[in-house]
Structure formats: structure tokens, C-alpha cells
């Protein structure tokens, strides 16, 4: 694993992965959208509105998957001081925040026709909102210092502390809601899902994952180049000073 901490090798890997991941992800999303919007039958309860699930559910999965990636990268950076782990974490954060925002917005759009309201303080919604705040906090803290490395370390610690907290948030919020009011809305009860509805969902989920990988590769590549440019500028400035 330490072999991959070499920025040059890491840069080559992200370069090689980026384009195939983006193309395959795009293809899967197009297939998933076609199957989900035109082939899958309307839901017996929700009619056509259920189709937003094909964007909403993969986005929600990605929101959590990204946070796991952010936390693992941050932990690796804190433990072994590998710069590329920090580059990865920095690249993941905005993508994860975007998927979390998509999950919140699409859920809200689905909630209006289904529940008759844009937002309820449901346990699940509340914990995803807090997850969104964690992403925002990570990004804002990174940018709050003059020395980039200071921001990177502080944000990495925050990401790791957030992991300890996520199950506690989930648990407390679940409990809070059952305590305050009976659940007006229970999760969509689908013991079995018809294959014609399931396949598009799987295609979309895989497509979202590949697009996420492509975005992270692109952002990581850019970050590596920026760091390289900064160090070259420093060298040039030092050269002039001598």
C-alpha cells in the first residue's frame, strides 16, 4: 500500500482510471434512466412519482459511501502522513457533499406529491442533513487557514471524529423522532421489488459510483498538478533570490 503513496505513481493511476470510469458511468446512467423512465411500469401505489427513486436512492448511497472514503483517506493521512491520502480526501469532499445535496433535494421533490410536504423532521432526513453539515464543515475548515497543511490536518481530524459520531447521530435521531411523535411516515414498504424496477436501480447505482470515481480522479489529478506548480514556483522564487 505504501508504494501507492508515491505521487507520480498515484497520478498515473488516476489518469488511467479517469476516462474509462467516466464513460462507463455515463453509459450505465443513460441505460438506467431509459429503463427507469420508459421501461419500468408505474408503481401500484405511487404511480409515476416513484421514478425519482432512480436518482434519489443511488445519491443517498453515494453520500454515505463518500463519507466512508473521506474518513478512511483522512485516517490514512493522519497515521502515515501520506500526502496522496490528503489529496484523495480533498477530492472526495465536494463530490460527497454534492451527492448528499442531490439526495436531500430529490427526497424533497418526492416528498411533496407523496407526503404533501417538502420537508419533515423524519429521523432519516435529519441525519442526512447533519451528514451534509459535516461535509460542509470539512470543506470550510480546510480553507480557513493560511497554511494549507494546517487546514488539511484539522479537517482530517474532523472527518475521523465525525465517523465516531455518525452512528450516535443515527441512533439518537431515530430515537428522538419516535419519542416526539409517532412516525407519520414509515419507509416505503417494499418486501419485494419487481426485476423491471430493480435493474435500472442497480444500473444507476453502479453508474453513480463510477462517475464519483471519475470526479475524484479528476479533482485529485488537478490537486496534484496544483501542488507541483506551487513547488516549482517556490523553487523558481528561491532561484531568483540567490
Amino acid at each position, binding site marked *: 500500500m505504501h508504494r501507492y503513496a508515491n505521487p507520480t505513481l498515484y497520478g498515473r493511476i488516476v489518469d488511467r482510471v479517469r476516462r474509462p470510469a467516466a464513460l462507463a458511468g455515463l453509459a450505465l446512467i443513460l441505460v438506467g434512466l431509459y429503463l427507469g423512465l420508459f421501461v419500468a411500469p408505474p408503481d401500484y401505489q405511487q404511480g409515476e412519482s416513484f421514478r425519482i427513486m432512480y436518482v434519489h436512492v443511488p445519491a443517498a448511497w453515494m453520500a454515505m459511501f463518500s463519507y466512508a472514503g473521506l474518513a478512511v483517506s483522512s485516517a490514512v493521512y*493522519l497515521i502515515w502522513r501520506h500526502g496522496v491520502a490528503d489529496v484523495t480526501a480533498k477530492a472526495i469532499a465536494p463530490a460527497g457533499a454534492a451527492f448528499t445535496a442531490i439526495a436531500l433535494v430529490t427526497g424533497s421533490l418526492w416528498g411533496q406529491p407523496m407526503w404533501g410536504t417538502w420537508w419533515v423532521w423524519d429521523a432519516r432526513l435529519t441525519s442526512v442533513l*447533519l*451528514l451534509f*453539515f*459535516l461535509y*460542509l*464543515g470539512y470543506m*470550510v*475548515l480546510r480553507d*480557513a*487557514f*493560511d497554511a494549507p497543511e*494546517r*487546514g488539511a*490536518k*484539522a*479537517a482530517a*481530524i*474532523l472527518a*475521523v*471524529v*465525525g465517523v*465516531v*459520531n455518525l452512528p*450516535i*447521530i443515527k*441512533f*439518537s*435521531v431515530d*430515537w*428522538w423522532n419516535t*419519542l*416526539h411523535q409517532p412516525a407519520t411516515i414509515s419507509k416505503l414498504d417494499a418486501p419485494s421489488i419487481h426485476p423491471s424496477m430493480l435493474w435500472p436501480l442497480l444500473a444507476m447505482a453502479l453508474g453513480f459510483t463510477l462517475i464519483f470515481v471519475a470526479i475524484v480522479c479528476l479533482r485529485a489529478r488537478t490537486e496534484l498538478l496544483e501542488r507541483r506548480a506551487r513547488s516549482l514556483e517556490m523553487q523558481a522564487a528561491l532561484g531568483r533570490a540567490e
Partner: protein
Amino acid sequence: MSLAGTFTAILVRDLARTAGRSGDVVAVLAFFVVAATLFPLGVGPGPQVLARIASGVVWASALLAVLLSLDRLFDADRNDGALEGLALSPAPLAVVVLAKTTAHWLTTGLPLILMAPLVAIMLQAELRLVPALMASLALGTPALSLIGAIGAALTLGARRGAALMPLLLLPLYVPVLIFGVGAVEAAANGLPMGPHLMLLAAGSVLALALAPLAAAAGLRAGLD
């Protein structure tokens, strides 16, 4: 110097410093009362509504008061260079953080607990709920100070550090708020509040074990 000696020395020093600037404590308490006062003005003076939201308002206002007091936790030591000295000393930084956080709790959490009955009465809370409210604050505010120490350490020397703190700490504070208010709500509904208080205590104990380590790591990241 033993760990206990280090802890005591830092604690006494920080308490003495605050005693010399009693304005800090007054500011926290004033904020607590002012924040709570906004609610009746905002939602109207109806006693039923106020009594219904009293425990939540007291908890939320106390939480905000703690949040606003955190920026002074490490600031003075950073400005006069004491922090570098403490980081270089053989004493574990986590113990230093724990001592400073204890001093912080004694000068914010404790006064807030003592002030809570007054604010609760202002908000038309039932008198029989005041002990429950004080108990939940007593078990919950240590977690607020300890988790807050992480936020204070991470934002040390940040631009807009004070504005950052609420965003960073809100997700971490939510469980404390939920179980704190939950205990009082349980008492209000004639249910046992033991489970809530135990969870609150568990949260404080967990924070006691982990937060000083995380905050010390945050301080080190800011020093080297």
C-alpha cells in the same frame, strides 16, 4: 511532575485567570438569558406554548452559550506562547486539554446549570421539572465542553474561527441536545428519565475518553 499534579496546576491556573476576568462568566450567563428571552418574544407570551417548549429552549440556549464561550478556551495560551511551552513539556497534551476543559466547564457549564431554574421559570416551565432539567444539564454540559474543546483546537488560528465553530460542532452536539431534552420530556410525561440520563452520562464519559485525545491532536496540528 505527576499527571495529577499537571492537571491540578493547569486547572488552578486557568480558574485563577478567569477569576481575574469575571466578565467572561457574566457574558456567558447574559447570553444564556438573552437567547432564552428571544423565544417568548418570538413565539408569543402564551403560557401553554412556552411551558411546552421551555425545556428545549433552556437546553438550546445553554448549548449556544457554551458554543460562544469556546473561542477563549485556547486563545490566551496561544497568544502568549504558553501553548507551545505546554506542547513541548513532558506532560501529555491530552491531560493539559482535559484540565483546561475542566476549568472551562466550571466557568461555563456549572454557572449555566445554576442559572437554569431562573430561565425555566421565566419560560413558564412547571416547577416540578426543574430538578430534571438541572440533572440533565449537569450530565450533558460536560460533553458539550469536551466536544467543544475539539472544535476550539481545530479552529485555533483559523480565519473566521468563531463563525466556523457552530457549523463544525452542531452535528456533534445534536445527540447531547436530544437526550438532554429527552430526559426532561420524559419527566414531564411521567415516564422514568433514568434511561435518558444514563445515555447522557454515557455520552459525557465517551467524550471524556476520546475528546481530549482528538483536541490534543488538533492542537499539535496547529503548532508544528
